[in-house]
């Protein structure tokens, strides 16, 4: 019975001491300890979160860089294609223009040749006519130096006129 009979003295001292201990340890030990633990946990957690965020950001940046790079590549391809198209078109137009110009020049040349030819022919004709007249004059002058011949010619003409 002795063992299971609580003594008033020990109950008193235990209650008093325990409450004082509880109060003092709460104020001076548990509060700073729990606070420090929480603070450290929060800081570790936030550091981990920040690292995770940085990782995600890095990934985002990388993806963006790749996107930019791809865009730049596409832009380059587009510009190159446009440039080559433009060059081709330029060459094409130049060729066409040259062809046209050539054709026009040929046509002009042909026309001018034709004109020259016609002029030359006319001149030749005129010269031939003048020569013929000259020759005819000289022949006539020689032929008609004797009256006989003059006579015969007149006769011929008359004959001809009669025939006409």
């Amino acid at each position, binding site marked *: 019975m*002795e*063992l299971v*009979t*609580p003594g008033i003295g020990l*109950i008193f001292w235990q209650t008093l*001491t*325990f409450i004082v201990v509880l109060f003092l340890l709460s104020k001076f*030990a548990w509060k700073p300890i*729990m606070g420090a633990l929480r603070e450290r946990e929060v800081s570790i957690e936030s550091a981990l979160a920040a690292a995770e965020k940085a990782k995600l950001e890095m990934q985002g940046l990388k993806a963006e860089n790749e996107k930019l790079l791809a865009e730049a590549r596409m832009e380059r391809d587009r510009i190159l294609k446009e440039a080559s198209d433009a060059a081709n078109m330029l060459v094409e137009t130049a060729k066409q223009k040259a062809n046209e110009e050539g054709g026009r020049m040929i046509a002009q040349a042909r026309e001018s040749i034709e004109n020259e030819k016609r002029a030359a022919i006319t001149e030749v004709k005129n010269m031939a006519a003048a020569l013929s007249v000259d020759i005819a004059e000289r022949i006539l002058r020689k032929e008609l130096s004797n009256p006989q011949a003059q006579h015969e010619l007149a006769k011929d003409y008359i004959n001809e006129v009669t025939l006409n």
Partner: protein
Amino acid sequence: MKKLFILLFSFLTISVHAEAAAEGGEFRPGDLIMHHIADDYSWHFADGVTLYLPVILIDNGTPQVFSSSNFYDENHALVPYNGYVLNHGHIYRADANGQPAADQSSLLDFSITKNVASLFASVILLFAVFLTIAGSYKKNRGKAPSGIQSFFEPIIIFVRDEIAKGNIGPKYERYMPYLLTIFFFIWFNNLLGLMPGGANLTGNIAVTLVLATLTLLITVFSGNKSYWGHIFATPGVPKWLSPIMIPVELIGILTKPFSLMVRLFANITAGHIIILSLFSLIFIFQSVAVAPISVAFAIFMFFLELLVALLQAYIFTLLSAMYFGGAVEEHDHVGDHGHGDGAH
């Protein structure tokens, strides 16, 4: 470490031997064991090293303070002093013959007994340890723990995460100081009780009674509407059963801390009794040949007691946390028990 334990045991053995010699004549293990686990007015560390503690009595409202050494004469025999007598570990009013008088009313004993002295020593130890740790936390702000801090930090975190958070829920924070204090108080005192010459503080029913009462008071005062609702109108139980249910529930409130009180007291006291019994075997058989077996078993028991010291502190704290958890738990489906409509 092993050498240290053997040394400690040798002290204990010497102490037992001295006790046996002091009895003079027949060795009575029961008396020896009871003497060791009971409270005392002097602290007997080893043979010849005794600290006489102050006696504080309130006799009809008048305080009386004197040293317990006054109860002993030069031959270490008990004598009455100042109208009081020490008889079988208790102080009584003495009659003319130096025997306990018939009228013992209004005599309150608030003496600084061995257990109270041990309690103060443990409190000094608790302050020394935890104020040092708190200091290291201030000094190592945001850094990794060092030294004694790194030994206790996992235990503090264990109490917080496994005992408090797991059983109380989101409102665990306000119970943390109490849970940490009882955990370390019980653990430290269990260990101090295992020291040779140490007092059996946590194996004293008055101490466990106070601790269990504090748990009961905190539980009752933090009980919310749903907690009291379960006690006075248990959901799902027909109204006409309440004359039975309410007393049963009210007894249930008391049996929980009662079990805490008895569990801690019985476990610690039993451990002390077993170790002392093993040593007593040597004197019962009056043979040195028994000593190696006794010591081997006692060392085994001692290691078991070291485990029990931690385990009982854990169980007391865990169960306290569970009772607090039950008191603050929110039942968002009150009135839905046993109806089976499944609308959770």
